[in-house]
């Protein structure tokens, strides 16, 4: 049995498990819809009034995408690890040929699929419900490596959280505590100009910043450089994935 087949077996089980948790499926897709409806339709952007949402609608597409790219893998992978630990599944898996890297890769693939679908939904809603312009085709294609890299990164981060938190409740609490500030302080919904000057360098420490800036460059401001953002994101993705795989429990 090849590595690919083991990963497929794990990913298939994880995919079916996800699809059959209807509440999880509903809220995974409802959450970004809610955000787009609240901020894109109800609040709407106010380009001339200053304050929050003062930029054109297309500016905030990276922010909407960031919600699923950030929250979903953090909570899903973290909770899955806590659930596996509670049910002694890692103890069982440790005696099979499946490695920790393969386990995380399988669950990352599932998250890429889920978040890819959610991203398509967000993109469609933003274009449908706001006056955002349709990104160029090249920008849409370049969205793929950004989304994949970010999902890999935050799956690794989720694995670290799952290792550190004792319970599923702990994972959810920790992921919300980490994700919420990251979401708003990563050049997504709040521009750098709206933050104190001293805070600017801290924004650069958030991995999500490179996602937001890169996605904005390819979808909202074609011509802006994005290679550096993608490269940083890819390097961080590899680093977090390796750290996350290593953090997955194998023994007690």
């Amino acid at each position: 049995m090849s590595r690919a087949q083991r990963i497929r077996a794990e990913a298939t089980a994880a995919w079916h498990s996800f699809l059959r948790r209807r509440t999880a499926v509903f809220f995974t897709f409802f959450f970004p819809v809610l955000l787009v409806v609240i901020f894109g339709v109800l609040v709407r952007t106010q380009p001339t009034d200053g304050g929050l949402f003062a930029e054109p609608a297309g500016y905030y597409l990276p922010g909407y995408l960031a919600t699923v790219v950030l929250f979903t893998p953090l909570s899903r992978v973290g909770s899955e690890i806590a659930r596996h630990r509670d049910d002694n599944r890692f103890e069982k898996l440790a005696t099979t040929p499946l490695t920790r890297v393969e386990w995380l890769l399988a669950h990352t693939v599932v998250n890429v699929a889920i978040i890819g679908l959610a991203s398509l939904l967000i993109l469609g809603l933003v274009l449908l419900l706001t006056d955002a312009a349709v990104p160029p085709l090249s920008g849409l294609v370049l969205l793929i490596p950004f989304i994949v890299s970010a999902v890999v990164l935050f799956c690794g981060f989720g694995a670290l959280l799952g290792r550190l938190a004792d319970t599923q409740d702990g994972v959810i609490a920790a992921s919300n505590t980490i994700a919420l500030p990251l979401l708003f302080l990563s050049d997504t919904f709040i521009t750098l100009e709206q933050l104190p000057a001293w805070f600017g360098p801290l924004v650069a420490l958030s991995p999500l910043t490179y996602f937001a800036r890169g996605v904005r460059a390819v979808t909202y401001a074609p011509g802006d450089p994005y290679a550096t953002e993608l490269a940083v994101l890819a390097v961080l993705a590899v680093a977090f994935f390796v750290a996350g795989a290593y953090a997955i429990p194998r023994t007690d």
Partner: protein
Amino acid sequence: MDEAVVAADVTKRYGETVALDGVDLSVADGEVFGLIGPNGAGKTTLVRALTGTTAVDGEIAVEGNAPTAVDPDRIGLLPQSFSPPARLTARELIDYYGGLYETARETDEILSTVGLAEDADSYYETLSGGQQRRVCVGIALVNDPDVLFLDEPTTGIDPAGRRSLWSVLETLADGGTTILLTSHSMAEVQRLSDRVGLLQAGRLVAVGTPAELIDTHGGGSRLVIDTDAADAAADALAAEGFDATAEPTSIIVEGVSPVDIGDAVAVLSAADIAYDSLTWAEPSLEDVYLQLTGETFEGAGARGAAATATAAADSTTTAVVDGDSATQAEQATQEGRQ
């Protein structure tokens, strides 16, 4: 015979707590080894040590390799309190775990083996507790392992399901699979195991075949007589050479063979002592367990109750008669002598 599992001076500490204290163990190829002991004795820790899922001091070899280096296709594990993804069907779960191995048994064959062919397409979470445990045993069998570790495999399974699983394990053992199982069911261990080890506070305090352990530590057969006149009855029986001990509402007579029951009844009749029932039982592994662990049941007549409970589980070694039937028992015994 080659050794499938060898452990030498295995020690495991959790801070100040010593979970395993210099355990030496060997399990031969094709042997079924039962591990018994009180909660917290170290059974699960030992299984984890043998399967490489916890680090220990000492030497361990499974099929000649360190636990973490053994070919995973050759070992199977059912961890304690294991629960697979709940919203997969039994068939999907067997497929899933089978997909992780180089070679796997046919899914339908495993489902049939564990008696789940008819419920194969039910979600795990909708199965009964016993059916869920059978799925878990099936998962442990997917790679047709040479060495199988089962940590309390029949917990939560009803008697019929338990006996069905025993048959599965007996078939595996007949086929040459080495099995190490832990259990709190003495009847299970006594029926399945070639040898039994008793862990107590992290130490392996006794190892042997069930018969050896019973002979050495089980004591003799015993007769328990429920009566309100325990002291008088004990005195009367002792006067006739019986080894009788008075409890508040019963007497325990040690070393009584079936043919001696009539004599004991005759002694009580002669002394005009009324009694409610007689219970005779052979010693069992449960008596060994109670003897070696020092555990007892609370309340009067405790040992007798333990013996009865054990024998009842075996359903072949107990005889219970009420007072009205005692005369018949005496007659039957005397007829048996003739």
